[in-house]
Each structure stands twice: as structure tokens, then as C-alpha cells.
């Protein structure tokens, strides 16, 4: 599956936010979704590259993919059951 084929249910723009706000906002955004739905997250904090996968593991959500776009880090997360 390539990133352009992922269906997104919600998007979160966390560009410009510093640690730990990208995962704080992600946690809040995921609360609004139903299990199985997908959140697209865009962040510029370099720490989010490691933070988002760790957060997914801790909270039981799935990191579908992550990639860079220019100076931004893009993540697709699927809400766990």
C-alpha cells in the first residue's frame, strides 16, 4: 500500500508544536475516532519521529506508515480496538 492510497478519517496539523504537544494533540484527536479509523498527523518536531511510534506501542494504536515531506514528518495512525 502506498501512502496515497490510505483513506484518512481525520487530519491533525501539529506543525510548529514542540515536545510533547504533538502526541498530546494526537491522543486527543484519536479519542474522537472509532476503532479502525485513520488519523493523518503532520508534525515538524524532530522528536516526533521516535515519539509517535513509541506512543502507538504504549497506547495500542497502529502506526500504518510514516514518511517525510519537505521539513515535515507525516504519520498515518489507525485507532486500536
Amino acid at each position, binding site marked *: 500500500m502506498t501512502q496515497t492510497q490510505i483513506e484518512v478519517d481525520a487530519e491533525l496539523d501539529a506543525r510548529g508544536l514542540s515536545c*510533547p504537544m504533538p502526541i*498530546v494533540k494526537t491522543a486527543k484527536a484519536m479519542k474522537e475516532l472509532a476503532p479502525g479509523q485513520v488519523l493523518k498527523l503532520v508534525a515538524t518536531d524532530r522528536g516526533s519521529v521516535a515519539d509517535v511510534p513509541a506512543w502507538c506501542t504504549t497506547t495500542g494504536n497502529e502506526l500504518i506508515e510514516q514518511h517525510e515531506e519537505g521539513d515535515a514528518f507525516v504519520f498515518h495512525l489507525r485507532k486500536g480496538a
Partner: protein
Amino acid sequence: MAEKLVVMVTHGTADPELATIPFAMAGAAIASDVEVVLGFQGDGCELVRKGVAETVHADEFAPLGDLLETIQEMGGQLLVCSPCMKKRGLTEDDLVEGAEIVAAGRFVAEVTSATNSLVY
């Protein structure tokens, strides 16, 4: 929230970075479904005096006021050392919303019942 993290804060406004890091860790923990207790001792008590957190912003970190607001909103506990407050002339009315005055016995109870604790 099966996991519980206690984070002790002992640095105040004189060291914005070490004042902010415990709040950042607490914010990340709450976002990760971990129960959080922030304990304030020594100069750390300054940070829960009304109006102070908003004035602290370490470079490259989220502003302390935003972090405190997040922690309050998401149910983190704020426990403040009673003798440390007295030494600084602080009373209950000076504290931010939700802060609770405690002493060593309560800190011990929190730390011994936590999954882990961090001291800054």
C-alpha cells in the same frame, strides 16, 4: 490507566529547562494513558503559584503554561510540599486550580504505589 508515574519537580523559574522537562514528561505520560502525579518540592513550588507557569518558556519546549493546562485538563494530580510552601510564604490561595497541599507521607505513598518515578 494501569500504569502510574510520579514526577518530582525541584527546579523553579531560575532554570526554565529543568522546570519544563518534568512537565513535558508528565504531558507525554498522560497522552500515553499513564496516570500522572506531579510533586512539587523546593523551588519547584514556584511553578504552581498562580500566574507563574505562563511566564516560563524554555527554548525548543512547549510553553510551561500550555503544559500545565494540558496536565490539569487531562486529570494529572498536582501535589505541593507543605513546608516548602511555608518557607516561600505561599498559601493555598496562591496555588493554581487543582493543586493539593501535602507532606512527605503522601509523597511516599504516591511513589511506593507508582509504576515508576522521576526526580528533576
